[in-house]
């Protein structure tokens, strides 16, 4: 009887130790996953391979002919595009925006942070090749079809 009790006690102890170990490992994994997710680096347009390489005329042309399909095709993608700069605008926060105007609309590429330095050197009429992530489009009476890229990065 006494022996059975000792064996039972040992078994319970072993189960408790195992449970504590599993809980500890689970907690460690959970915290690691949380920290990994929480501190994961932001998307890098510089490092990310472009999903499409095309001219600004081809890009805008897609939106002029079938905006719904173009939106689905390019949504959240990194694009590499080239064209001649029609205008440059600097906003109130000193962020540079390059505009590529084509009949019926325009493409706006916005630069943020350190990437403004390269964009600031660009002038109207310059041929430019750049990368940026597609953020969306819309159509109105004032601007026509507007296609926007963010986080611009000059390649040439």
């Amino acid at each position, binding site marked *: 009887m006494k022996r059975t009790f000792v064996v039972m006690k040992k078994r319970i102890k072993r189960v408790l130790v195992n449970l504590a170990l599993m809980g500890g490992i689970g907690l460690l994994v959970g915290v690691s996953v949380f920290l990994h*997710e*929480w*501190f*994961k*680096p*932001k*998307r890098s347009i510089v490092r990310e391979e472009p999903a499409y390489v095309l001219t600004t005329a081809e890009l805008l042309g897609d939106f002029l002919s079938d905006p719904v399909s173009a*939106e689905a095709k390019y*949504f*959240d993608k990194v694009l590499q595009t080239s064209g001649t700069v029609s205008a440059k*605008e600097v*906003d*109130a*926060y000193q*962020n540079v*925006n390059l*505009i590529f105007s084509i009949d019926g609309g325009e493409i*706006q590429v*916005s630069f*943020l942070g350190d990437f403004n330095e390269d964009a600031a050197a660009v002038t109207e009429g310059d041929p430019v090749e750049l990368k940026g*992530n*597609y*953020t*969306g489009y*819309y159509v*109105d009476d*004032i*601007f026509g079809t*507007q296609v*926007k890229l*963010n*986080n611009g990065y000059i390649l040439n």
Partner: protein
Amino acid sequence: MKNRFVKVLSFLALSLVATAFVPLQDDAVYVTRTGHVRFFSHTAIEDIEAHSHQVSSSLNTGTGELAFVLLMKSFEFEKAKMQEDFNTDYLETDEFPKSTFKGRITNLSAIDFSRNGTYTADVTGDLMIHGVTNTISTTATLIVGDDVIKGSSSIKVKLADYNVSGPSIAGGSIAEVIDVDIDVTYKPKES
């Protein structure tokens, strides 16, 4: 007597026709494609802030009509995880990629767009976020300068009013009411 009457009528008619073809000095469209919107969520657990610098907007100084288009994907957050959650779990930006505001200045007579100065505009219109439209009213500060109008306003957005919900709102790490600050610098629309 009859001749005089005809002359007066003719003069009035000519004056009306002439007036119709003279553009109102103040009736102009001002635009921007680089407006800024900041949203800020404050709770005891954490603060969340995001900025978009790609807001397109137009202001018709003759009619007081105002329009804004904001592409939700253009919001930049401090942390990648916040940006990801914002786009996928809360605002569902693939399904609802734009927010818009269409409204007008309701106290237009109190603003002299031909004279430089600072004015307070009362604004009412329809705000669409996450596919849900609500009518809102707010005030905006307009600073009229030479060929430039600067506008700014702050609004509070109750997320539940726009069907935005999620565990972090219920859990208290995202505020139920978000502060949204808008500032734009308009320039005359090139014809």
